[in-house]
């Protein structure tokens, strides 16, 4: 049987790990460095089957397996093919106790918990179950042969045993250096270790020359050829060898425990032992993951970094793949040797084993994008769909100009189901709305609607919409598509905070809404059975096309418009009926691209596009929407305060000849920055580009002439189109 290492076939026997197979072939997977065979150190890492940072000592060799050495410097390359890997499944498990590690102490802890009647989950590396990390919860993420496990436990018990301390001395980057346990494991696996010199605790069952003392250095070119040891008598002695076995003591395998700081996580058995303290080295690499040497430690120590956590950050020791599993004994002994206090190991960060992207993404989902009840209708009509305001919406139906002229000259329908919608009733409904809105809600009569701004406590505009008085103390509110979720919470929070007796029903997803707009919209609606005269900003309940609707007369496009709010399950039927009835009227559905152009011609602001986080009503020239002479409302005090300050910038209308500049384009006055464009479109009806943009005031005045994208532009009054709004109110 063969595996492929860096393009060359390597023979292996049944039962071999990848590491054993490579060592038998005289290859060190990383080129050199002490090996532990316990999955603790970074010295056997390689890319296996395209997944980097795989531990060759823990991976059984398989025929045809592709193994690649990591580069000597830098990181292994990311996969460059575009082929998605297989999806990794997830299981969520809930338990009282999870025990990580199933050695003697782990089994005992699991049994004890079971005897106490607790629900127990165990993880055993021998069964291919590796805990990768512990997160807030506590939540343990584990890689298993059945996919990823996300274990939600009340208590985590770490029973992961102890790892051997690795040698730090000049030359410890050579091949042929093993911990005592690794020496035993590899000898048993049939790896020819040659002449073995054992320093400290000798390996069991392996013939070796046992030596006591402190390692001074390892010698050799690429592979160890000798080790120099300072004996108890202080003399240095050189021992020629093919391999060095190092038994310097044990350090608790406590990375997971250190990850669980502040959580209900404890260690048992060897994982809870006191760490052995090795002799502080005078030279050599302490942290192989980050390449930190004793000299590096000295430098930061002398710079005043004398705490474990600070030394970690100053040198990056312990920030690599093993999260301090290998270097903390030496960091502790270094600090103690320099006269510092013996300090506990630092907090570890997930992960202890490197997951593939598929494993990391297992169980994760993109933020879902909702679809209106008309989604299938739009797609059937060939709409180009895009995410707008957090929803899938029709951007256009293939011909924006056709859509545009249908609105301006005939009739069109648009899907506005995404608008936020809410019913409010109750004894304190009016009191609540008066507090929330800067308009005099009490002056909105039954059957009437009003366009309103919504301010936050700092007086900044965060949304807009309508208030519709339904009579009997009941109100229907609308919000922007993108802001409706926040607006709902905002209304609820204020109702709770003010302890007002109001009923609130959020209806955004329950109701569809279709905007019927254009000079022939009334004709279309009469064909659909709606003949009730409805003045501008009035609303009523009626059947349209056989569907019970709340009909609102308004205008965002600048033309006569009616919004039909209706049960979402009736949306498709109503939509089709309207298209059918308007066929000979030249009806076309319009998408968002057209809508943005239409509303811009009217100078209608889109909150979130034309507004920013510091937008006041004054800055967008909409102070008419605030009634400062009413009682207190959210944002009033801030408005009174900011109104005393000089106006520094304003959302202004701009126009220019030729094509429309990009939204976001910088506005210049000469060579001075004067602002930026927020909305921009070429107006077919006006034959020029129209824009809204934030423009700075110079000496208290907005400049009349500016430059955008190198072309002259003029400030212009809004609305650009139908200045008297005769068409909307027709």
């Amino acid at each position, binding site marked *: 049987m063969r595996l492929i290492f860096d393009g060359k076939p390597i023979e292996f026997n049944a039962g071999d790990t990848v590491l054993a197979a490579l060592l038998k072939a005289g290859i060190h997977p990383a080129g050199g460095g002490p090996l532990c065979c316990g999955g603790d150190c970074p010295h056997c890492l390689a890319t296996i089957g395209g997944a980097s940072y795989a531990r060759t000592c823990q991976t059984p060799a398989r025929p045809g397996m592709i193994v690649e050495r990591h580069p000597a410097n830098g990181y292994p390359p990311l996969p460059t093919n575009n082929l998605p890997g297989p999806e990794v499944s997830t299981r*969520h498990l809930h338990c009282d106790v999870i025990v990580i590690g199933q050695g003697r102490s782990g089994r005992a802890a699991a049994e004890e918990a079971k005897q106490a009647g607790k629900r127990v989950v165990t993880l055993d590396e021998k069964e291919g179950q590796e805990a990768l990390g512990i997160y807030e919860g506590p939540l343990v993420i584990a890689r298993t042969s059945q996919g990823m496990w996300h274990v939600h436990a009340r208590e985590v018990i770490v029973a992961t045993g102890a790892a051997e301390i690795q040698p730090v001395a000049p030359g410890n980057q050579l091949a042929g250096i093993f911990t005592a346990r690794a020496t035993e494991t590899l000898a048993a696996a049939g790896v020819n270790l040659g002449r073995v010199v054992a320093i400290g605790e000798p390996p069991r069952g392996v013939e070796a020359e046992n030596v006591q003392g402190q390692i001074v250095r390892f010698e050799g070119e690429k592979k160890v050829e000798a080790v120099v040891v300072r004996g108890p008598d202080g003399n240095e002695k050189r021992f020629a060898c093919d391999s060095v076995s190092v038994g310097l003591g044990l350090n608790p395998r406590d990375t997971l425990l250190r990850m669980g700081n502040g959580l209900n996580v404890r260690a048992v058995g060897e994982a809870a032992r006191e760490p052995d303290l090795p002799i502080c080295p005078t030279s050599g690499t302490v942290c192989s993951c980050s390449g930190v040497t004793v000299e590096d430690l000295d430098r930061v120590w002398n710079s005043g970094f004398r705490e474990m956590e600070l030394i970690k950050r100053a040198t990056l020791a312990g920030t690599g793949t093993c999260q301090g599993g290998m270097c903390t004994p030496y960091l502790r002994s270094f600090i103690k040797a320099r006269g510092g206090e013996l300090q506990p190991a630092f907090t570890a960060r997930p992960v202890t084993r490197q997951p593939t992207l598929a494993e990391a993404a297992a169980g994760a989902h*993109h933020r879902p994008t909702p*679809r209106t009840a008309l989604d299938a209708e739009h797609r059937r009509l060939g709409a180009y769909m895009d995410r707008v305001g957090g929803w899938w919406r029709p951007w256009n139906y293939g011909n924006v100009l056709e859509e545009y002229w249908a609105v301006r000259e005939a009739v069109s329908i648009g899907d506005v189901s995404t608008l936020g919608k809410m*019913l409010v009733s109750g004894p304190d409904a009016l009191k609540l709305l008066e507090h929330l809105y800067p308009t005099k809600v009490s002056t909105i009569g039954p059957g009437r609607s009003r366009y309103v701004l919504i301010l936050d406590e700092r007086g900044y505009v965060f949304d807009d919409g309508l208030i519709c008085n339904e009579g009997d*103390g009941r109100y229907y509110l609308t919000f922007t598509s993108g802001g409706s979720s926040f607006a709902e919470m905002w209304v609820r929070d204020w109702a709770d905070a003010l302890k007002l007796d109001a*009923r609130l*029903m959020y*209806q955004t997803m*329950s109701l569809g809404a279709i905007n019927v707009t254009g000079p022939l919209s009334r004709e279309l609606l009469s064909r659909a059975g709606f003949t009730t005269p409805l003045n501008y900003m009035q609303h009523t309940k009626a059947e349209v096309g056989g569907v019970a609707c709340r009909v609102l007369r308004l205008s965002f496009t600048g033309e006569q418009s009616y919004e039909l709010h209706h049960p979402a*399950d009736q949306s498709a039927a109503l939509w089709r009926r309207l298209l059918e009835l308007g066929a000979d009227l030249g009806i076309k559905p319009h998408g968002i691209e057209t809508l943005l152009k239409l509303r811009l011609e009217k100078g209608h602001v889109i909150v979130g596009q034309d507004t920013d986080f510091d937008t006041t009503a004054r800055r967008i020239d909409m102070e008419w929407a605030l009634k400062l002479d009413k009682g207190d409302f959210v944002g009033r005090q801030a408005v009174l305060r900011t109104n005393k300050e000089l106006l520094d910038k304003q959302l202004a209308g701009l126009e220019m000849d030729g094509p429309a500049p990009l939204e976001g384009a910088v506005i210049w006055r000469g060579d001075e920055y004067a602002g930026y464009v927020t909305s921009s479109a070429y107006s077919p009806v006006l034959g020029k580009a129209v824009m809204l943009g934030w423009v700075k005031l110079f000496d208290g005045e907005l400049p009349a002439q500016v430059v955008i994208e190198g072309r002259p532009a003029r400030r212009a009054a809004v609305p650009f189109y139908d200045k008297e709004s005769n068409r909307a109110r027709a």
Partner: protein
Amino acid sequence: MPALNRLPATRIVATPSALDAAAWPANILALRIASDEVLVTPPAPEIKLNDPHAIFEPDSGFADVWLAADEALKFLERECEWELPAERPAFAQGMVAGIAAKLWLESDRVLIIVPAPFVADFEERMT
């Protein structure tokens, strides 16, 4: 996995005390989705409540699917981070597959309800 369909329902918003005291007919499922709100299916607009300001509205904003218990639990083990209630029947709410969901758990079957606008995403995540 079977498809989700729009759920015909009535939504009722009223004072918590009025909802606590309400007598719900035996042939309907009344799910207390908030302290002041109940989702009733099939629609039942005639429920009597001791709240003159209560809001009753027909609702088609949710979609639902019944799954056999073992099929549902297998799916939920994969896509539900929170622990399901042990008792049956039980009502629970939370994120399932990254989407706000309501669960009505019976001993042999489970009703999964999600906002209708998220059905496409949810169905994709069920497979």
